[in-house]
């Protein structure tokens, strides 16, 4: 399915003309969990483009190092630290190391997460736990470690959480991630209220489909066909996701806290009065469906 020529598809400005000056976050240090690839790297790249020094937390050193190298290749400053965000001791140690190498951490981007299709009745307890604990426990543990340090130093801070546009609906074959990402939205509102007096802001980006090297649709032809599914007529570009996340962490958004910004090209609003015949996920060749 191609997009008719008379449809108007609007792209964001190119990567080389970001919305912020290169010193917007000069002197700031940002932790990005799961920042070695995908959407985390998108956040880390945009934060670095605005002048922040980046500590990438990753479960494997190799991928975190790749992310850091990519940021340095763009002229940014980044280090890679191995940490499993489900373990509070590892989180504390990673914060210690990041602060020793880069200075006090003033920005936290909670992105670490995973997702894959599996029918709920066939989902093992470990599969359920792996996805929900990285997203829910990881976001909680990193946020509280961050906040304790900011409160002890009597300085403000900003957190941005990576949620998803499907949290208000869920979708079949995604019980683990749909539940976990929705928990992040609620946690955003709760932590924002807890820490408003201390000037620690907590916001959330609920993103639609932003393809990257490790996502299911990495080739250009598939992305065009996927783009045709969305009202906006295209998939998301990683730079626009990174920029809006950076906006929320910056002083431009100094009064914004507890909020969810949806960036999905109206993906979640696609519901029609009439739809194709319903096929139970169990009877589908592919649980999440096929690219049109």
């Amino acid at each position, binding site marked *: 399915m191609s997009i008719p020529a*008379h*449809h*108007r*598809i*609007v*792209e*964001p*400005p190119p990567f080389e*003309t*970001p*919305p*912020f*000056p290169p010193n*917007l976050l000069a002197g700031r240090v940002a932790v990005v969990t799961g920042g070695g690839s995908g959407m985390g790297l998108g956040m880390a790249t945009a934060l670095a483009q605005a002048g922040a020094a980046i500590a990438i937390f990753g479960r494997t050193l190799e991928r975190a190092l790749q992310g850091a190298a990519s940021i340095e290749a763009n002229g940014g400053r980044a280090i890679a630290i191995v940490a499993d965000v489900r373990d509070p001791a590892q989180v504390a140690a990673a914060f210690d190391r990041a602060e020793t190498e880069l200075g006090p951490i003033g920005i936290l981007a909670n992105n670490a997460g995973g997702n894959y299709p599996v029918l709920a009745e066939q989902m093992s307890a470990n599969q359920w736990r792996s996805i929900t604990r990285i997203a829910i426990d990881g976001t909680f543990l990193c946020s509280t470690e961050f906040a304790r340090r900011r409160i002890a130093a009597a300085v403000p801070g900003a957190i941005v959480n990576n949620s998803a546009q499907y949290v208000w609906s869920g979708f079949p074959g995604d019980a683990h991630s749909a539940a976990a990402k929705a928990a992040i939205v609620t946690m955003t509102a709760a932590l*924002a209220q807890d820490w*408003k007096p201390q000037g620690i802001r907590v916001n959330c980006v609920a993103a*639609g489909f932003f393809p990257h090297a490790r996502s299911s649709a990495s080739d250009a032809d598939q992305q065009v066909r996927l783009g045709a599914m*969305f*009202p*906006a*007529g*295209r998939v*998301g*570009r990683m730079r*626009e*996701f990174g*920029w*809006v996340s950076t*906006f929320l962490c*910056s*002083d*431009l*958004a*100094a*009064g*914004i*806290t*507890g*909020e*969810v*910004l*949806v*960036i*999905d*090209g*109206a993906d*979640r*609003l*696609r519901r029609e009065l009439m739809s194709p015949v319903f096929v139970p996920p169990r009877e589908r060749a592919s649980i999440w469906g096929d690219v049109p």
Partner: protein
Amino acid sequence: MTIATPQWLQGRRALVAGNAPGAEAIAAALARHGAAVVRAGTAATDAPEIAAAFAAAEQSADGGIDILIHAGTPMAAAAPQDIGLAAWRATHSADIDGRFLHAAEFTRRRLATAGRGAILFLMPSPVIAPGRAAPATAHGALDNLVKSLAVEWARDGIRINAIASHVAENFAGAAQAEQESLANLAAYLVSDYAAYVTGCVMGISE
């Protein structure tokens, strides 16, 4: 805090309608970001009057209006049993009809030139509290209006979003950081940097 940012709205032309007090701060922010800004001070609810306001704005801005801000009309707190039909109708006409008619006129003009556009509503906050029957009702209607129009006009390159906030309702009573963030967020959302954001209804610090 003032930060010198690159101009997000160079070459754009904005009509800022509605009379909520936050509208002035937003108009100033759009101008700072390089947009030509025309203020429509009253919250018109009459279609010919709205069409005339667009025509005048396009003349004054020397080109097609490609950004519409509608700040609405703040609604007073009142016990629902004391509002009465006349006040109820007048309030909703100012806050719902006026916005719909502005958005539709904006889009007809955009379609005529095949130009992209962005609409932003400043809306009542979603907070349910005593005395808020009218603003909460308006919030619900506008929330679905924004989401419906976002889908209807997506392939025309016309986006629509809303900031639903106490800062929009009571600008003078908000903290300075909240006031500045309202203006910054508004400018960002109508810029091409937010090209993939449509149908989003968010607050400032609700």
